């Protein structure tokens, strides 16, 4: 069942509580009362179609965004994606880190095994952080410059330069490496840890890793299904404009 504007926000959460984080990222916090999706979006000055597309893309993996999303405001989308990144780096990862610390201070565990897991996790966090940084330093400014140019006709030279450095299609492929590492970490814990006396702390870590993986998966799904088509649309317009010599 898809989320629609007439639903009460409380019903939305009962339908799929994983959406809590997504809704938070729009600045909408708990305490919804009887308010509908439409009312809360209006209160927070959020374009309703934009909210619905993001939430439904996240909610139903088979949902295919409507064509109207090609006209979405790139800046708005990027603000949302940045909020998501902040959530990973400032909330989710530190939470897992706490469990890892609990594991490493537990005397009943073999020192070498603890160190391997901790180091592997840190390596993963490092790569995830690098990846996020690259998106924020290179991809997003490029997208914003592109949007700005199409709106105002200014900043062309700068834009073409960053275009040469990066194309949005490359960016689609980049997610894979970071994802593989998380996949490996899960399998090492599930299959190859020497049998511990008590695996409860590892259960918690695994549970968090599965949740993180799902969330990241949905995040890149949104990037691929919404951001990438928008940028491709803008690039096409950009090349058409510059070829015709308008805005010179």
């Amino acid at each position, binding site marked *: 069942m898809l989320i629609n504007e007439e639903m009460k926000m409380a019903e939305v959460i009962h339908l799929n509580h994983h959406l809590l984080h997504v809704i938070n990222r729009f600045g909408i916090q708990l305490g919804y009362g009887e308010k509908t999706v439409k009312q809360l979006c209006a209160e927070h000055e959020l374009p309703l179609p934009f909210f619905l597309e993001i939430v439904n893309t996240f909610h139903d*993996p*088979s949902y*295919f965004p409507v064509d109207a999303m090609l006209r979405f405001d790139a800046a708005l989308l990027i603000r949302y994606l940045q909020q998501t990144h902040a959530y990973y780096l400032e909330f989710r990862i530190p939470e897992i880190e706490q469990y890892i610390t609990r594991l490493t201070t537990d005397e009943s565990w073999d020192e*070498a*095994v603890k160190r*391997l897991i901790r*180091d*592997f996790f840190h*390596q993963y966090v490092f790569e995830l952080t690098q990846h996020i940084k690259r998106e924020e330093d290179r991809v997003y400014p490029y997208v914003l410059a592109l949007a700005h140019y199409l709106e105002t006709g200014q900043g062309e030279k700068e834009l073409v330069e960053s275009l040469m450095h990066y194309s949005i299609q490359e960016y689609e492929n980049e997610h*894979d*490496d970071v*994802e*593989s*590492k*998380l*996949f*490996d*970490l899960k*399998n*090492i814990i599930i*299959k*190859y*840890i*020497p049998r511990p006396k008590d695996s409860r702390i590892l259960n918690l870590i695994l549970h968090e890793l599965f949740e993180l*993986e799902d969330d*990241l*998966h949905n995040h890149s799904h949104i990037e691929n299904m919404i951001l990438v088509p928008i940028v491709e649309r803008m690039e096409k317009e950009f090349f058409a404009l510059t070829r015709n010599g308008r805005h010179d």
Partner: protein
Amino acid sequence: MIEAVKILLIEPSYIIKEGLRSALGRFGLSFRIDEVDEVKENLVLTLEKFTPRIVFANHRALETKWAGNRSAAVFDEVLLVGMYNEKVPLFEMARYDEVLCIEENKQQIISSLQNILKKAGLLSNESETENLSEREREVLRFVALGLTNNEIAERLFISTFTVMTHRKNITRKLGIKTVSGLTVYAILNKIIESGEVNAF
């Protein structure tokens, strides 16, 4: 995350679509499932649009135009599964790679799906041992120590291509894809000593 396998459902019935999704969900694989209600016009165009690895098609939703001609290149990459019920004469199903009878019970459906996924190379045959062979352990040892494919090939007097085949099999058997993940595995299983590798 293993790359999601693309599946296309050509089926008007909501109940059957959802049922198939849920049955496929039992295999613990990552699927990206697209849906269309029917393909009356051009199956080739539909396949080119969705580029699925497996197609589950209701026989009736294809029937009229597509008579089984599979000459188009796009068919080479696709496993075509025809879904039918008891009313369809079986000879009509010969045009498909595999068939799935939607009236079967749970056990039969799961076992048919299992065969289909095996045929598509997504599930391995149980008979195949999942333990690493002696050669694979050797290759794994060098990978964990940070050697490149070329270096490993030289040391073991085999081709680079063979090294790559071994690496694919190691990854498939262990469920570990990255070099640092393989290194952790190698240390935990005493294939190498943690002192031997400094990069990690």
